[in-house]
């Protein structure tokens, strides 16, 4: 069953850039009418988690004072995210460090795994990103209300506004707060979707030019150079989108920790 699905993944004669986003079931499970099969998306999410745990676990297993190469990389990643959390939320924001670090590492590994040929990009489906963004907003609202009580809703009434404008400003603030999970998820989703479609379109140009015959064959290497440039851009975007997701998580959590700033 596993071999058939891998076979179908490699032998798909796809000529359009959308075919890469199709979900294929690897193992079919139904629980009470809900389809909870193990798809290629689940497989790559599992691979991202396993890779992250193994790499970071092995790197930090021997906490030598003079770090080895792997340990330095893990320490750089830790220091990068910890610096970001401390900058945005202050020292008492470090209690959210596990959440922010897990989000950053998961999204980074999921994006990077999608760069390999024939691998599926899990973050190119809106449902995955929406789940992550809703998790962040649930933590923000839940922690904000648990810690501050109803003073949490002071973030909707910014200080320094003349009272007569509250009728206008508060609905606008509420709508802007409600659009946070939407923009957080759609930013990552659209970047990954657009990037991978662009990759396949440029790669398709190479083949189309080379098979057009005549003088157009000379343009095929130009298209190949363009493809290489787009691949480099996509690696940058993969890291950048993970960083932006993490830093926006810190900004939103700061609202829960210190409302009314």
């Amino acid at each position: 069953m596993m071999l058939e699905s891998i076979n179908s993944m490699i032998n798909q004669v796809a000529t359009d850039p959308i075919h890469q986003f199709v979900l294929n079931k690897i193992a079919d499970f139904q629980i009470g009418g809900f389809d909870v099969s193990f798809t290629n998306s689940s497989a790559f999410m599992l691979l991202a988690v396993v890779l992250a745990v193994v790499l970071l676990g092995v790197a930090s297993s021997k906490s030598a004072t003079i770090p080895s190469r792997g340990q330095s990389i893990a320490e750089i990643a830790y220091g990068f995210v910890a610096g970001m959390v401390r900058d945005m939320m202050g020292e008492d924001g470090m209690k959210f460090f596990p959440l922010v670090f897990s989000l950053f590492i998961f999204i980074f590994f999921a994006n990077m795994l999608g760069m390999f040929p024939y691998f599926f990009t899990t973050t190119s489906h809106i449902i995955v990103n929406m789940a992550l963004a809703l998790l962040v907003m649930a933590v923000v609202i839940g922690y904000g209300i648990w810690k501050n009580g109803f003073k949490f809703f002071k973030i909707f009434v910014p200080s320094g506004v003349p009272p007569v404008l509250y009728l206008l400003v508060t609905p606008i603030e509420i709508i802007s707060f409600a659009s946070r999970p939407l923009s957080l998820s759609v930013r990552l989703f659209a970047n990954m979707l657009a990037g991978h479609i662009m990759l396949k379109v440029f790669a398709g140009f190479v083949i189309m030019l080379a098979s057009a015959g005549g003088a157009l064959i000379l343009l095929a290497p130009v298209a190949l150079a363009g493809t290489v440039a787009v691949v480099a851009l996509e690696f940058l975007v993969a890291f950048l989108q993970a960083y932006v997701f993490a830093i926006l998580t810190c900004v939103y959590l700061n609202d829960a920790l210190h409302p009314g700033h």
Partner: protein
Amino acid sequence: MEEGLKYVGAGLACFAMFGAALGVGNIFSSYLDAAMRNPSAAQGQFGNLIFGFAVTEALGIFGFLIAILLLFAV
């Protein structure tokens, strides 16, 4: 008729990139202006630069998303 209008809609959605391009150019131009005035403080703001760029570019990509939705999901 609706099939053809989908492509018109997808083309119109590309106007979103106009605003996004202006925004991204603004961000980098302000950064360069300020970096030329105060070069030693420029490195400290690099994180904010990259963050501002990503958030602004996202809006242009939302427009691209509308085009893709019109072409493939409607």
